[in-house]
C-alpha cells in the first residue's frame, strides 16, 4: 500500500499570483492581492458568552489599525456549520461595523453536514481547524494569519506587517496576553490593551522548543508554504486541543523555522475558554469539549489529502464577497485514513520532535 506523499517544500519561493489557486475549484474571484489574509472562524452560538459582541469589537479594532497603517488586508471568515435557528454573522456584521469595507471580506458559510460527517468525537461541536483550513485554502493574501475572533493584534505585530519585512517559509508566532474577564464588556483601545494592570496573570511567553502556547491565536505564514504544508491536521479529528501545536511540529519537520514576531496579541478572557475551564474536566477528560488534551500532538504529524480545506466542495456565491460551501461527499475525506499519520523528522539544528509520555487511556 502506498503511503502518503512526503513533505516537500519549496521554501523561500516568491509570492505567486493568487489567481493560480483558482484551478482547485474554490470559486474565489480576487480583485487584488492583499498583503495579509486574516483567517477567522465562528458562528452565532454565544460561544464563551456574548460571542458576537466580542467578535465585532475585535474585528473593528483590527480593521481600523490595519487600515490606518495602509496594510492591504482581507478577512476570510468561515462561518462553520451555522445554527439553523440563529441569524448568521454575515447578515449582522456590516450593520454592526458600518466602517468595515465589504470588499476586504470573504465570507464562507459552510454546510453543517460537514461538521456532522467529519467529526470523530461527538463532544467536539465545532471543528475549528477544519474550518480554518477552509479559509486558508481560499485566502488570497501573500501571508495568511490564522487567528481567533477575540484576538486583538498588538502594536509590534502591526508594525511588522507595515514594514513588510516578513519572510516566506517562516512560521511567525506571537505570545498571547490574556486580559481580565471584566474587560470583555468594554470597548478596548491601546491604553487598556497595553496596561499591565489589565493582564490576567503574568504575561505569557512562547514556550520553546515549538514556540507553542495559545498557538491557535496566532499562526502566520506565507500562503504558498501554508498550502504546501496543507494546513492544519485534518486526519486527527478527535481533539481540538493540540491541533495548532501539531501544525508547528509539522512545519518544523518540513524544515520551516518558527520565529517570534516580536510582540504579543491580546485576548480578553471569557467564560468557557480553555484557559479558564481546563481544570473543570480533570479526571473526566473523555467528557471535555476539547477532547483528549494529552494526545501525542508533539510526537506525530500528518499528511492531509490534496483535497484539504474542503477544496472539492461546491462553492456557490450568495452575494458580494459571500459564498456558500455546499455539502458534497466528494469533499469529505475518509472517516479513517491511518497511513496519513506519520512520524516527524528531526531537522539538523531544529528541536527534536516530542517524546513519548505515558497517559492512561482509561
Amino acid at each position, binding site marked *: 500500500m502506498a503511503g502518503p506523499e512526503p513533505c516537500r517544500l519549496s521554501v523561500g519561493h516568491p509570492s505567486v499570483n493568487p489567481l493560480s489557486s483558482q484551478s482547485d475549484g474554490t470559486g474565489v474571484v480576487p480583485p487584488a492581492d492583499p498583503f495579509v489574509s486574516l483567517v477567522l472562524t465562528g458562528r452565532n452560538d454565544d460561544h464563551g458568552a456574548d460571542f458576537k459582541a466580542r467578535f465585532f469589537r475585535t474585528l473593528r479594532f483590527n480593521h481600523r489599525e490595519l487600515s490606518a497603517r495602509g496594510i492591504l488586508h482581507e478577512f476570510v471568515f468561515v462561518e462553520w456549520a451555522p445554527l439553523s435557528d440563529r441569524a448568521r454573522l454575515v447578515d449582522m456584521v456590516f450593520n454592526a461595523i458600518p466602517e468595515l469595507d465589504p470588499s476586504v471580506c470573504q465570507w464562507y458559510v459552510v454546510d453543517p453536514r460537514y461538521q456532522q460527517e467529519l467529526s470523530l468525537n461527538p463532544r467536539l461541536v465545532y471543528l475549528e481547524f477544519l474550518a480554518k483550513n477552509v479559509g486558508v485554502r481560499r485566502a488570497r493574501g501573500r501571508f495568511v494569519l490564522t487567528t481567533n475572533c477575540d484576538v486583538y493584534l498588538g502594536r509590534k505585530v502591526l508594525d511588522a506587517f507595515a514594514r513588510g519585512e516578513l519572510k516566506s517559509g517562516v512560521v511567525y508566532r506571537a505570545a498571547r496576553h490574556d486580559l481580565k474577564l471584566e474587560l470583555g464588556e468594554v470597548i478596548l483601545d491601546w491604553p487598556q490593551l497595553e496596561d499591565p494592570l489589565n493582564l490576567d496573570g503574568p504575561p505569557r511567553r512562547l514556550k520553546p522548543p515549538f514556540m507553542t502556547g495559545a498557538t491557535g491565536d496566532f499562526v502566520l505564514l506565507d500562503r504558498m508554504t501554508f498550502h504546501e504544508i496543507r494546513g492544519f491536521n485534518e486526519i*486527527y479529528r478527535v481533539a481540538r486541543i493540540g491541533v495548532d501545536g501539531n501544525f508547528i511540529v509539522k512545519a518544523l519537520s518540513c524544515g520551516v523555522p518558527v520565529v517570534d514576531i516580536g510582540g504579543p496579541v491580546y485576548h480578553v478572557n471569557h467564560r468557557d475558554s480553555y484557559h479558564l475551564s481546563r481544570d473543570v474536566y480533570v479526571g473526566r477528560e473523555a467528557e471535555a469539549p476539547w477532547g483528549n488534551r494529552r494526545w501525542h500532538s508533539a510526537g506525530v504529524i500528518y499528511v492531509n489529502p490534496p483535497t484539504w480545506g474542503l477544496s472539492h466542495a461546491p462553492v456557490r456565491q450568495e452575494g458580494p464577497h459571500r459564498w456558500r460551501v455546499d455539502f458534497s461527499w466528494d469533499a469529505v475525506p475518509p472517516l479513517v485514513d*491511518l497511513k496519513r499519520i506519520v512520524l516527524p523528522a528531526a531537522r539538523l539544528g531544529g528541536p527534536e520532535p516530542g517524546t513519548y509520555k505515558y497517559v492512561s487511556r482509561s
Partner: protein
Amino acid sequence: MIKRALRAVGLVRLVKYTAAVEQQKKAELRARKLAQQVEEVRADSRGWKAKAEEAHDQLKKAQATVAESAKRAERAEKLRVEAEHRLALDGKRKVDLVALETQLEESARELAFAREQLMAIEVKLDILEGAANVLDGRTRTVSAQRRTPEREPTV
C-alpha cells in the same frame, strides 16, 4: 770479707743501694703504667661490651627487618599475582563494557523507535476509537429508525 759482713747485717754499698732504689722507682712506675693500662683495658672492655650489646640489638632488629621484608616481599608477590589477575580480568571487563555500551546504545535507539511507533499507534487508536464510536452512533440511529415502524400496530 767486708762485703760479706755488710751483706750479713743487711747493708749494701751505696752504689747498689742507689741502683736498687732506681730499679724500685722504675718498677713502681711500670706498675702504675700497667695499672693504668689495665684500667684503660677495662674501660675499653666495657665500651666493647656496650658496643657488642648494641650490635646484638641491631642484629636482632636487622633480623626482624629482614623477616618483615620477607613477609612484605611475599605479600607483594601475592599482590602482584592478584594484580595481574585483576588486570586480565579488567581487560576482559573493558571488552565486556564496550559491548554493553554498544548494546545499551542499540537498546536506547530501539526504545526511542518503539516509543515513536507507540505514539503513532496510540494516535491511530484514538482515530479508530473515534470512528468506531461515530459508526456505532449512526448504526444505532438507523437501527432505531428501522425498528420504530415495526412496533406500530397494524391497522
